[in-house]
Every structure is written in C-alpha cells, then in structure tokens.
C-alpha cells in the first residue's frame, strides 16, 4: 500500500519535473550546456531630415515577418515625438508624430534579432494578381517575353528562373532591352519583374533586407524577389535567377512601398548600421519566455541578484550530494560518520581543491584526534569536552593557515573553509568509536566518510550538472523522486553480498 503511494508520488514528481524541464528546453530554448552563446544582430536605422514649419509625421517600415530570425527586442529613440506601431499593407509601420519641431531631426529605430531556423513565419497566400495595364510599346514586349518563357518552363519556379535569366542576359533580345531601358535602380528592376510575373498571373513582390554578418556602418538594403508558387513563397536572386536567399538575410520590408514617408520634412535620409554581439542563450530564452507570456520565468534563479545566484549555484548541488550519500549508504552500504557530514566536507573540497582538501582534512582530523585523546585523560564532562574540541579545531585551522602562509602555500589558507563544527563532531564521534570498537572500525568509518565525500565532490563538481540544475531547478523534483524510490529499496546492499556470502554458499 505504502509502496504504491511512493511509486505514485515518485512518478508524479518525475512527470512534473520532466515536463517543466522539457517545456523550458524545447519550447523556450533554454540551453542544456553553460557555454551556449547565440549571435545577436542589432540593426539600427537612423532617420535624418530637416523639419518643415508645420506638424511632422514620419512613417518607417520595420521588420514584420522575418524568416530564419526571431526578434529579441526593438525600441526607438526620438526627442519629443509621439510613437506608435501600426500594421499597414506592407507590414508593421513605426510612426512618429510631433506638432512642431525646429532644425535637423534625428530618429532612431533599433531591432535585435537572433537566428532561429524554426522561425519560418509564413505569410498568407496572396490572391492572383490582376493583369497589369501596360501601354504600348511595352505591352507587346511583355506579351512576347512572357509567352516565350512560359512555353519553355513547367512551373512557377522554372518560369521565374528562366525569366530572370533572360532579363540578365549579357546580350539581351530587343524586348528585354526595351523593358530594361526604363529601369534606373534595382528596386525599379524588381518592380518590372513583378509586373512581368503579374501578367502571367503569378503573385510576386520585392523583399528588402540585409545580409547580416559582422559589423556594418552603412548597410544598404538589398532587394530580392519573392514569388508565390501557390503553396509557399520562394526567394529568387533578381540578378542571376538562382533560387536562394543570401546567407542570414533579414527581411526588413516587402513590396514596392517606400521605406520611409515623412510629412512636413525634407532632405530625408535613412541609414542602417548593423552590429553583431554574442549573447548568453539563457537571456534569449528569458526574453522569449517573457514574450510568450509564460510565468515559468517569474520563478527563475536568473532574476536573483548575482551574489545570491552564486550562493544558490552551490546550494542546488547539495541534493546531488545527498543523492550520492543515499546511494553509498543504502545501495552500496558504506559506513560513514554522520548522515550528511561527507556532503558538507565535499562542499569544503570545492573551495580547497580535492588534493589539498583531502590533505588538510586528514591533517586536521588527525591532529584533532590526538588532542582529543589528551583531553580524555582530563576526564572532562561531555559538553565542555565537545566545546574544547571545537576550540582546538579552530586553533588548529588557524595554525595551519599561518604555517601555510609562512611557507607561501596559498591553498593552505583555504583550510578556513572547512565546517569546523562538523569537523569537531567528526573527531568526537571518531574517538568514541575508536575507544569502543577499536581503531579498525574508526578508521573504516573515517575512510568510508572520505570516499563518500570524494564521490560527492566529484558529482557536485560537474560543471554541466551544475548548469543543468541551476537552469532547470525543477530537475530537483526528479532527484527527489529517485531518493524517494531508494527510500523503499529493500534489496540487499552491495556490501551485504560479501557479508552474508557464507549463507549463499550454504544455500
């Protein structure tokens, strides 16, 4: 009956722990390892213009759908302007407005993005575009070109590629030459392309954005062609006809609309600057969690003050030590002094390093024990004797530190980190066992304590584990359930197999 409750509780705890863990890992993207850093690009657009006499309204197209990227945050800086974000036909539009302003004006809009291959935000499927109205002589040129290309292609991608190849032919045919005579800029060129595609009833539009990489003072938006094949949007290089996007291409805006519209101002200029930084993956996950509106993060350790975080990164490893302790005691069957003394010793080892820790601990206990035997001759009462041992331990620690300092051994100073009360109790317990059961038992238990302490130290010192527990404290629930299960483990301890081996032999 009790057995079943324990199993049930353990399963419940594991499920809760693992599902929070899985959610944070898979959905919120918390990193499993500590050194995971993600590059983050900050794109800053600076709008300069001279203010006119009247009210001013500035509209800037800003990133909306960014395949391959997620927006970490965006913000704007302007002096005295009212700011709003609106959704227009071409996507999101930042709008600044002010009643009046004097002189040259500058407005900043900044967005930080990071790569996320899963961020394939799909746009809606557009309707078939109406056939464009074209005047002669272009009309004939378009018709000939389109029907030509159409005959030699099978579907939308092949049509687009072929069309682009024809348009980019170094020795163009007369129709292309005619069409290209009107083209003055790359965006003109892309609008000509969309017009050509539209006349074959293929939805197409220009996409403008930036190939991200490194630091760019003055980035120029690059125009690419986006064609819908009835199923999804495809990207084409308008200069070569290849179907691809430049590496790390951040889409800033789509369509033929102009990037910026300023009412009541003149000499408008927009500059883009790009900077790449590396940000801890945890902070990206945090931001995403905040955006998703999940409350998981309200309880995050990362929101604690840094010093408290440092304390907890150590404290959270104690359950690991306890787990080691439980395994060693109940599964293996090793004798040790005190229930959790080895775990506390292991904590001290973290500061002193293992070898020094072992050396200092053994030295301290050995010295303490010999003095404890001297005290025994004085026949002190129990509590005063314990007090005396404690004082002696403190003095021994001081002595070791002083000697180490004199010898120039920095590590010797760390002896001060040992939990002195625990050591005093260990010395007392060890001396009682020594007297009652003999040296062998005392040494065996003392050695057992050290073995457990070393194993706990190793387990508690695993950096990946520390990161894992710190980032996903819910895993403690899983550890708790393991400990609960071991609490109902009624099988033999490993060392009992040798202890009772006479019985196994005799059957």
């Amino acid at each position: 009956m009790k057995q079943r409750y324990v199993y049930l509780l353990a399963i419940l705890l594991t499920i809760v722990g693992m599902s929070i863990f899985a959610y944070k890992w898979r959905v919120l993207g918390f990193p499993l390892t500590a050194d995971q850093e993600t590059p983050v690009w900050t794109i800053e657009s600076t709008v300069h213009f001279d203010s006119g006499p009247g009210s001013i309204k500035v509209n800037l197209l800003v990133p909306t759908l960014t395949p391959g990227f997620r927006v970490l945050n965006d913000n704007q800086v302007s002096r005295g302007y009212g700011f709003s974000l609106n959704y227009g036909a071409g996507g999101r539009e930042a709008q600044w407005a002010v009643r009046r302003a004097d002189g040259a004006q500058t407005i900043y809009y900044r967005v930080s993005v990071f790569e996320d291959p899963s961020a394939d935000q799909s746009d809606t499927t557009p309707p078939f575009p109406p056939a464009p109205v074209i005047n002669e002589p272009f009309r004939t040129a378009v018709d000939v070109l389109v029907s030509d290309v159409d005959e030699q292609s099978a579907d939308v991608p092949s049509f687009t590629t072929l069309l682009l190849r024809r348009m980019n032919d170094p020795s163009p045919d007369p129709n292309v030459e005619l069409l290209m005579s009107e083209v003055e800029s790359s965006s003109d060129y892309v609008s000509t392309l969309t017009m050509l595609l539209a006349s074959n009833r293929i939805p197409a539009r220009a996409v403008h954005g930036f190939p991200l990489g490194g630091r760019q003072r003055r980035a120029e938006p690059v125009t690419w062609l986006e064609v819908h094949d009835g199923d999804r949007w495809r990207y084409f290089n308008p200069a070569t006809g290849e179907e691809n996007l430049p590496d790390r291409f951040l889409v800033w805006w789509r369509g033929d609309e102009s990037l910026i519209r300023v009412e009541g101002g003149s000499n408008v200029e927009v500059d883009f600057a790009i900077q790449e930084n590396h940000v801890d993956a945890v902070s990206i996950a945090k931001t995403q969690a905040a955006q998703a509106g999940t409350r998981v993060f309200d309880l995050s350790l990362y929101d604690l003050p840094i010093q408290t975080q440092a304390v907890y990164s150590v404290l959270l490893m104690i359950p690991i030590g306890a787990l080691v302790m439980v395994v060693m005691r109940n599964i293996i069957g090793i004798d040790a002094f005190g229930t959790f003394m080895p775990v506390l010793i292991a904590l001290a080892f973290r500061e002193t390093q293992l070898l020094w820790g072992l050396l200092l601990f053994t030295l301290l206990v050995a010295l303490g024990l010999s003095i404890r035997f001297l005290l025994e001759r004085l026949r002190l009462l129990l509590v005063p004797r314990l007090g005396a041992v404690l004082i002696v331990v403190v003095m021994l620690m001081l002595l070791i530190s002083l000697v180490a300092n004199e010898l120039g051994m920095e590590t010797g100073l760390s002896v001060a980190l040992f939990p002195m009360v625990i050591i005093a109790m260990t010395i007392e317990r060890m001396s009682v066992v020594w007297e009652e059961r003999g040296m062998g038992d005392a040494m065996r238990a003392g050695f057992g304590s050290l073995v457990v302490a070393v194993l706990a130290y190793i387990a508690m010192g695993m950096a990946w584990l520390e990161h894992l527990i710190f980032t996903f404290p819910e895993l403690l629930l899983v550890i708790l359930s393991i400990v609960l299960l071991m609490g109902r483990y009624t099988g033999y301890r490993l060392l009992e197999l040798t202890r009772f081996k006479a019985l196994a032999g005799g059957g």
Partner: protein
Amino acid sequence: MFATAKKLREAGVLGLNERNAEFIMRLNPRRLYPRVDDKVLTKELAIKAGMAVPDLYGVIRNQREVRTFEDIVESRESFVVKPAQGSGGDGILVIAGRSQRKRDSFRLASGVLISTAEIEHHLSNIVGGQYSLSGNPDKALIEYCVRFDPTFAEVSYQGVPDVRIIVYRGYPAMAMVRLPTRASDGKANLHQGAVGAGVDMSTGQTLTGVLDNDVVDEHPDTGALIAGLNIPQWDFILESAARGYEVTELGYLGVDIVIDRDRGPLILEMNARPGLNIQIANRTGLASRVRRIDELHDADASPEERAATARREFPAEHGDVSGQNLALL
C-alpha cells in the same frame, strides 16, 4: 554479483534495507521505542510482567547524583554500570570485584584495575549523553552482575555470554549465543569481536560459531568446541522471549537473556533494531522463518504456545553441514 544476490534471496537472507523498511518501520511504531531504549523502563515493565531481570542497585539521573555512586555500591562486591539508552553494548562497565591491595579501586572483568574516580567520570559521561542514541542526557544504571552459568565457562573469555533471540510478531524466530573473546574485551557483541553461535530452536543446542563473518568451530581464546552445548532451561528462555512481545508490543524485537548460576535466565535488555549477524551465526536466512511465522500467525496464542510453535517449526538445518561450509569458505 547479481548471482550472489539471487542466492541470498533464495536462502531467505534479510538485508538491512529490508529490515529497516519492512520490519522496523512497519512493526515497531516509534512511540514504543522508549520501552526498550530506556533500560530503566524496560526493567520496570519486565518486572511488572513477572519476568526475571538482574536486580537494580541504583540509578544515577544527573551529574549531582554521580556522588551517590559510592553509597549505591557500598555493600556490593560486583556490579555492572550501563547507560540507560546505550546501544550495541557501548558504555558498559563490568566490575568483577574490589581490589585487594588498592583502596577505592575495583577490578574490571578483564582484570584491569579501575579507580572510583574513573568510574565516576564514566558515569558523568553516561549522564552527559555520550553513549545515548540521540546524544541527549541519559541515566546510568548500576545493577546486579550476572554470575554466569558454567555451561559456557569453557567458551567464554572473561565477560558474560548471553543469548540473543529475535522475536517476530511474538514468535521466537531465531537465536544465537554470543560468547565474549579477548578481542571483544569481555563484551558480548559480535561487531566488537565476540563469537556468535547459532542455536537449534527445537533443542536449545548450540551450532558452530561465527567470528567476523567466518565460521569457527572452536573458541579463539579457550580452544573449546563451541557446537553441541545445551543451553539450560531452553523452554523457559523461549517463553520469556516470547513474552517480551507482550511487554513491548514491538513486532520485530531482539531479546537478550543471560543465564545466572543461581537465578536462572534473566532478561538483560531488549532491542527494537536487532542486527542481522544472527543470520550468519545460524547460517540461515531470517526472511524464510518470518514468512513461515506470517503463515502460522495466531493473534490469540499465548507466549507458551508461541514458544512451542518455534520449537516445532525451526529445528536447525545445518547441524551436520558445517564441514561443507568450511570447505566453501
């Protein structure tokens, strides 16, 4: 390694984890512990139930009363000092007599002299809680020193041999005789180096002994054969042990009995967490006997009936295979 675990399971060997989880936690409610952990209380309860115990000369309850020690033992030649809440035989002093030559001195069972001041210091330590399970202040008992029965004289070195009986739900399940050795300093505890000898439950005859998990035929100090000794008043001992269940209500109980030359079997103490070495001494698993008791269990059976059941059900299985076991080891 797993093969060994399987064999042990087949042999019905009880492990520490199983003992703790299945027996002690299930059958021994914590509120009953004081009945066995406080030896003063155990003694009172046993006397009330009409069981024979060593006489209590005096109890020292605090540091102030340590001074009364000399008054308590004034007319006594021999006595035993023990902590009321001690465990595993720790803190017990067996005073065999007074020193002939030195005033204010006593002779320990080992022959070593001990001064009154040293005994008083020991008493202070006991009262201060050095030997108590929880480390809390404790009481010290001064009681009758058992003059043990000559049956075991040949197989004991100095101290007092005793009979440990595991009583499961009121039924005696397994027994062993614990024989002090030089190494155990006269104490009858196996982990201190005493020899344990299994006992045939039906006859009360000793089987071969075990020292530190190894089978021994002879006592390491005296060289006398351990097996084949008949424990006197075995029936009465089994019944007393069975009655321990009525006294303590503990379902998993260890009863320690000494056999006094003059007064017969006396209940020395009872234990709520009896160890598992008894299995090695008998070379029989406890788990299989426990299962049999669960089958036979009758809540209304009297201690005498339960003792009779034990005699009937648990004869020695290893009376003649000790030679084989030695070969295996």
